[in-house]
């Protein structure tokens, strides 16, 4: 794995805000159980190069196109090298997105036990609270990314979930 890569994941930003009665530095279990839900002891991430956070737009597209409704999107990114150094194993896998050209940008954090999941949670919390490594896209921005991808033939409307496709189509018609 390259060292200058970030692992990106969709979260719900508000869940990671420090909240009483927990202390400032503590991580609420609700944030972990909601945003870091594992399947087969693995957790899905998209990758993007650290040197060019414009690449984050590609992850936005990959995730938004795989959605079934256009909502705002909160993304967090954590340093891949640090995560691996802390004992979390990564395995490349094909991402679930209708944008074919982005599927290779997906990895799974695998073999997660409670300790490793806690490690990932700490990375996510530090990224959000201490490093500003998160970004919120409004519904409007998500729609813009999808419309742009359709217009440039990177994404086909029929490949989107039905309701999302209709909304993108409506948005394109209004332009």
């Amino acid at each position, binding site marked *: 794995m390259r060292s200058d890569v970030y692992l990106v994941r969709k979260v*719900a930003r508000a869940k990671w805000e420090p909240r009483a009665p927990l202390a400032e530095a503590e991580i609420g279990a609700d944030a972990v159980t909601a945003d870091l839900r594992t399947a087969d002891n693995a957790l899905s991430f998209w990758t993007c190069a650290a040197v060019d956070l414009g690449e984050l737009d590609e992850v936005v597209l990959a995730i938004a196109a795989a959605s079934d*409704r256009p909502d*705002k999107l909160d993304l967090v990114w954590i340093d891949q090298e640090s995560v691996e150094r802390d004992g979390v194993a990564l395995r490349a896998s094909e991402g679930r997105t209708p944008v074919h050209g982005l599927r290779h940008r997906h990895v799974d954090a695998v073999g997660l036990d409670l300790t490793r999941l806690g490690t990932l949670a700490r990375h996510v919390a530090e990224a959000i609270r201490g490093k500003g490594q998160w970004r919120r896209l409004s519904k409007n921005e998500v729609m813009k990314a999808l419309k742009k991808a359709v217009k440039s033939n990177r994404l086909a409307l029929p490949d989107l979930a039905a309701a999302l496709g209709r909304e993108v189509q409506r948005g394109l018609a209004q332009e």
Partner: protein
Amino acid sequence: MRVFGAELAEAIRRLRESLPKLSRAEGLSQTAEASTASCTRLFPVKVPSLEGRSTPAMVAQPEADRLLEVLSGDPLEDGVSHPADGILQDLILEKADAVAIWMGALLRRGRDASLVAAMIKCLGRLDPCKVPEWGVPYLEEALRRADIEVRDAAVQALELWATPASFATLRRHRDPVPWLQEYVQRLLREVDDRG
């Protein structure tokens, strides 16, 4: 007949003022009978659409329980449809006034902020033309809650409705958490840019 906004706002205000007086036994888990008694006591304002039917709490309780069960079992995720979306939509179409009362109690007394936030997000997923008239005032009240997840969900719901009333509500809001306030400002800039 429908409940006018001012009457509902007044009813909500009365409910808020009266809640501390209620005993714990009259909480969200109360029986339908206790709910009925509470609502009758707390809502001297007539709710014409409910006359001749069961009282609001009795009407809504089973569906409300189902809604909470569905949301508790499977967390609601941005960008992903949820079974609760349809349940709440049907419930509001059939019994908007009863849902107003029940959701008002949930907002003020619900102990699980994440669950309340999920319910608000669900509400935000309603087609804007199907939003009941208590919708925007309800979200305005949600914006005043202490828990950021609840406020954030209210911001998102207002964003999704994207009506003049919802943006006016956002314009009045001042959030104590900088990133959420910044997001509200960004949404309003988007609206202004679109003209």
